[in-house]
């Protein structure tokens, strides 16, 4: 088997395991990454929401916020894990497509 084939399989395994990145923090009661708090958390932490932050934080509405589906936030871990896997697949397909496109534009033809 070619090494690239093995690595693609490895990526597939990582996609399936990706919900661990959701489940483990939940299990160990870990919150957001440092400096990545939402407005509510910010209010709790410092007692106010910085004005500039409040304005800019809604600058962009991501279609799959936090690797999940909108409206599914309260649905529980199995649903969130499913959305997480779909997000991983979608993200990888798009990343790979863009890199191959860039690669095609930049890379030298093999002699």
């Amino acid at each position: 088997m070619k090494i690239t084939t093995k690595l693609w399989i490895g990526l597939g395994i990582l996609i399936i395991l990706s919900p661990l990145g959701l489940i483990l923090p939940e299990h160990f009661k870990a919150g957001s990454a440092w400096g990545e708090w939402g407005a509510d958390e910010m209010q709790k932490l410092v007692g106010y929401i910085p004005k500039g932050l409040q304005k800019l934080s809604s600058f962009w509405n991501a279609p799959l916020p936090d690797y999940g589906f909108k409206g599914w936030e309260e649905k529980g871990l199995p649903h969130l894990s499913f959305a997480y896997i779909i997000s991983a697949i979608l993200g990888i397909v798009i990343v790979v497509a863009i890199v191959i496109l860039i690669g095609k534009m930049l890379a030298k033809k093999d002699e």
Partner: protein
Amino acid sequence: MHIPDGYLGPATCGFFYALMLPIWAFASRIVKKTLKARQVPMLAIGAAFSFVIMMFNVPIPGGSTGHAVGGVLVAILLGPWAACIAITVALVVQALLFGDGGITAIGANCFNMAFVLPFVGYYLYKAISLGAPAISNRRVIAAGIAAYVALNLAAALTGFEFGIQLLLHKTATGQALYCPYGFNVALPAMIGEHLLIFGWVEAIVTALVIKYLQKQSPELLKEGGR
């Protein structure tokens, strides 16, 4: 380490976009000269790996979370300029599609994770593994050390960018406009958690994959083999 929208003021955001534009342009030129068509799938795998490894949030029990970036590994296999492009693509998709990292902070996030991280990691790996055969243990250790140092440096930079906001922007009443924590909090928080936990995750992941590649495909690790 993905700075969201709103944590950096316009000056910082603009500064890092301005800094990254020539880096991206230069990276494309270098990659155009050096990347062979048969390496493109490997570059795509590298970008995909970086994308998905960042989804593995590692918890500090009762505290915050963090993750590896995988960027040093991509740099070791394909060179730092190619890694810069691969990680940039991963970060832009994360920001646009998943709201992980802000749009206004893409310049800063790319500077930390797609530029400083792969470059520091790559040259440190080169220095430590200098002259070592492709299948030597020194390469595995070099990869681990390089990954650990590079991730921590990127985290320290992120902490610096957070911390400087309080110096740059304040309301008349002394309230923060953007990131509300100064250097005294942001730097130890970012550096501490990466030194203690997330740096090790990056180191172990990088070293294990290098070990695996030594067994499966050592030609990927040969000097000048890329």
